[in-house]
């Protein structure tokens, strides 16, 4: 192989600041968690499904459901999980920790959050958990601090 010493590699860096407009529907979900310590979902009465996190249209029949808010219990079931075992400055908590899909009572869709209070090697799908709300709010999904065994 020839040496590549005579070929430039141009180093570049693009700054990528951005915004995301969450919209009224997504915002209301976070605000209810922050101010009322309540997890809300949106219900499609036609398909008999409750979506958490909320979506303005039903993903099955595509009708507008953005006003059909329902309050959900803050307990649910783990439908799947993984264990994060490496340290990274952007992680919300120290590794190792459990990231799980939690389907709340009364909801038809799970969403991702952290499960604490159960040893990593004892974690199982099907575990009953309940939400623990954060004491200090940040107006993010981390206003639910984590889930713990119910």
């Amino acid at each position, binding site marked *: 192989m020839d040496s590549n010493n005579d070929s*430039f590699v*141009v180093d*570049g860096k693009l700054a990528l600041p*951005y915004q*995301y*407009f969450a919209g009224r*529907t997504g915002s209301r979900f976070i605000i209810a968690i922050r101010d009322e310590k309540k997890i809300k979902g949106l219900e499609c009465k036609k398909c008999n499904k409750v979506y958490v996190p909320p979506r*303005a*249209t039903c993903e*099955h029949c595509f009708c507008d459901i953005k006003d059909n808010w329902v309050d959900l219990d803050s307990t649910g079931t783990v439908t799947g999980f993984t264990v994060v075992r490496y340290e990274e400055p952007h992680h919300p908590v120290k590794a190792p920790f459990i990231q799980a899909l939690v389907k709340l009572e009364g909801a038809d869709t799970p969403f991702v959050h952290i499960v604490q209070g159960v040893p990593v090697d004892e974690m199982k799908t099907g575990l009953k958990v309940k939400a623990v709300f954060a004491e200090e709010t940040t107006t993010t999904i981390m206003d639910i601090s984590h889930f713990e065994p119910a």
Partner: protein
Amino acid sequence: MKKNRNVGIVGVGQSAFSSHREDVNQPELINEAVNEALEHAGITLNDVDCVVHGNMELFEMVHQPDMWHTLGTGAYGKETIRVTTGGTTGATLVCVADNLVASGMHDVVMAIGFEKLQEGNTTAGITNMSDPLWGRRLQTGALTGVFAQKAIDKYGEEKAKKAAMKYRIIMDKHAMKNPKAHRRLGLEFDEMDTLAENSPTLVGDLKMIHMCSQSDGACVVIFASEEKAKEICKQPAWIKDHITVHREEAYCAFGDAPHTTTHEYAAQKLFKRNGITSPVDELDVFEMYDPSCWWGIDWISEFMMISSDEAMKLIEDDEIMIGGKIPFNPSGGVIASNPIGATAMVRVAEAALQIMGDAGEHQVPGEVNQALASGFGGVMWTVLLLLTKEAPVWNE
């Protein structure tokens, strides 16, 4: 040029265009346009076979937006294709949808162009178009003063500046008739001089007042095969022909020999194969992708195949206004609304509405038998589309 089967536009939907849409997320914004288009076509999502989705890369700042947006597009369980060709994306979406229906592959295709410019990063999206070794450190984004200088060199300062502002105010007067338009400023012709004088300079003689906006918005167009289109729509807008032309990034790679611009080349070829010899007389409306009024006044002659003086006269005599000989952008054009991934599709959508007679307050008077729409993008890229009121007849 021959099509396998005719394709008609049977439905058009547009969200309201504005600088900020914090009230909706991306799928929700798209959903507004999808619902309007379905309603306009009088069909439901069940009738749609395939969804073609596009926007300008990095301007939306989410990964795989076509999948991210499924809740708004209704593409769940349908065939979906994503297309992204920069500023021309919206026009390319139309070409792709047309090809999918003309080929016989699908009977009904829904094309979606979208942008939320306030969320993404336009400079990052556009800066990487230039060669990192010799271009990127010297190049700017979409703003250029070159076209203002070109017009000033050609017509003299006073005449050029007057024409640019006249064009700008005509576009605003059109936008005032279009409730969907983003910038509706209520400008008057007698404000021409003060407006230009008081507007901040962007580059050279390109001022803020001359330039297009950055808009949030979505546009949806529904295409159907001739058989289907006639079944569901009283007056479809037929896609007679389209052409895509681009050239290399470096304008002078082959020396400074005189060159045909992509607009000129596209117009000459498209008109020739459709038997159009005098576009100004034979076309009834033109929705032109005009990023600024300086580009607008420069491109009239290129697309209409007339001299610069004749183009100037069209502006001076109000012939490009609604009610004129060849109305340009009854919608208000790109200067009024520019949600980039949707912008070029809005040109086609608006041309179609004119043919269908559904443009509302900005409907041009008289029959619209032939309408032209253009898309433009970096670095030099033209998509030109010809729509007709009569279904095209193809001879062997």
